[in-house]
Structures are given as C-alpha cells and as structure tokens.
C-alpha cells in the first residue's frame, strides 16, 4: 500500500540503539517538542518565570504529542479502511462482473418506493 513504504522509512533512533518505527510516532514526538518549545517560550516571554515556563512547556509537550498522535492515527486508520474497501470492491467487481450480483447491472430503486428505514431523499 502507498502509505506503508513511507511509514517504514520514517523511523527514529532512541537512545542511540532503539529503532522506533511505529507509524506516527516520529511526527508526534516532533510536534510535541515543537509545541513544548513554543508554549514554554511564550509563557516565559509574558511572565519571566523560568520554572513555571518549564512546567507549561512540558504540559504543551504532552498535549501536542497526544493531539498529533491521535490525529495521525485516526487519519491512518481511516485511510487503511478505505484501502481495504477499495481492494474488496475491486475483488468483488472482478468476481461478480457479468453475474446477477454485479451492482452495475442492477436497476436503481424507485425513490417513491423508499421505506421507513431507507435514507431520506437529498
């Protein structure tokens, strides 16, 4: 699949020996570091309190890492589901082409005959 090769290459090395290749981990940590630096710096520039700025920076790291991680993972999961649906659709198209189950040969339903469980008309 298209995204998998990019995921395999975008890893990072932790503590010099551990290769972390978890998808979205590198981006999450980088975004976390960036968010931490920005929030800590802004807090320090506005208050001149060093220790509290470090605390705020760390909170920014947690929130930015979590947010980036969650967004990346949900996007990736959605993409994988779409890829799987496409693959199944292609497989079914090849398997059912020309048969009575082929959706392209089935007649569309009359909108006036929609039942209570059918989606409403646009």
């Amino acid at each position, binding site marked *: 699949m298209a995204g998998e090769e990019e995921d395999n290459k975008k890893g990072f090395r932790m503590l010099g020996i551990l290769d972390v290749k978890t998808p979205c981990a590198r981006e999450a940590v980088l975004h976390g570091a960036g968010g931490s630096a920005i929030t800590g710096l802004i807090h320090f520039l506005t208050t001149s309190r060093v220790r509290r700025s*470090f605390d705020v920076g760390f909170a920014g790291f947690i929130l930015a*890492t979590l947010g980036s991680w969650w967004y990346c993972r949900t996007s990736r999961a959605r993409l994988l589901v779409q890829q799987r649906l496409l693959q199944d659709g292609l497989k079914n198209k090849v398997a059912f082409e020309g048969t009575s189950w082929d959706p392209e040969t089935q007649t569309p339903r009359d909108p006036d005959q929609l039942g209570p469980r059918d989606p409403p008309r646009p």
Partner: protein
Amino acid sequence: MAHPSQLGFQDAASPVMEELLHFHDHALMIVFLISTLVLYIIVAMVSTKLTNKYILDSQEIEIIWTVLPAVILILIALPSLRILYLMDEINDPHLTIKAMGHQWYWSYEYTDYEDLGFDSYMIPTQDLAPGQFRLLEADHRMVVPVESPIRILISAEDVLHSWAVPALGIKMDAVPGRLNQTAFITSRPGVFYGQCSEICGANHSFMPIVVEAVPLEHFESWSSLMLEDA
C-alpha cells in the same frame, strides 16, 4: 518472521494481529507519556528550593491524581475490550482444521471433505537444508488457503501444549479432553512460524508450528497430493 535482536512484534499477517499492533502502539504511547511525566516530576521535586513542612492536604491535586488515572484507564480499556470481542468472532469459516498436541509434535486433521491427517515433526538441526531455520522448520506444514476464514480446533493427546503463531496473533492452549476453538484469516500468502507455548516435557522447545498460506488452487493441489500419499 522473527529476526535476531528483535524487540517488537512480527509483521501482522492477519487482521486481528493488525488490530493488536495498533492497540499496542496506542498503549505504548500512553505509557511513554506517563513515564515522561513521572520523570519530569522527579526532576522538578529534586531541583526545587521550595519546602513546606506544614501542608496537610490539597483538594485540587487529590482530584487530579484520582480523575486522571481513571480517564487513562478508560482510554486503554475501551480499545482493549473491542479487540477482545473481535478475537472471539467466528464468521462462516471456509475450513475447519484440528490441531492436536502430542509429546513432542503436532498433528493436523482436515476432515471437512476427505479424511486427511498428518503429523508435523521438527526438522532436526543436522537435517536442515541451506536457508532453513533452526528449531522452526517442520517436515509437514499446516497449509491453508489465503484470505479465507479458517476455524481451528485445538486439543492435546497427553499433556498441556499451546498452539501459537505470533504473526497471526494466535495463542490457544491445547488441553487434553478439551476442545478450544479459534479462527483466523491470513491477509497475505507466506510461511508463518510459531512454537509450542506451554511447558510439556523434555522437547517442549522442539515442536514448532508452521503455517503456510497459499492461493486456493495451490491448496487444492496440495491436499490432493497429501491424500494420495496417505
């Protein structure tokens, strides 16, 4: 399959294992953030000059460190329970295979259509061909059709064994007198290795499991060949 100095899981070969990998990544990120938080608090505690000998309680911090762990546990438990129930689903299997544990080999029975059964012994190290894997290869592989739901019934003839294939996300105890059921779908063709996962005697480490996923027509020709040889 496994490789030297491996730290993580093997690449997933079934949808269930893919879900397990995703959940593991999710839980590991939470654990990583908690560890970072604890480390930061330790450093902050050690480096502070502030001391208060007379503090008795603090409602705010008590609320935070009660509610936050509960929220974290819920965030871990919900996907965990989802996968737990997902692993128990068995949707119209195309094939049922019986895997029986013995001391010290596995036997497989394909009895849906014909009476096919064979034993699977480990290939001894001195008999390995170049390129084969030590302690993992078996003389007869359990061949299954790829992308087909397979039901596998696991039991044992003598002592406890356990049928495990990490790439498929399967581990099920083989208990004498009991039939355990699980199901899997192989997402891609290939050879997937596992080892007995319940201590069962002297050669517990020498009764591997080898699952080979092949296209359906290859599976049909393999089963015909096995029936002729039987």
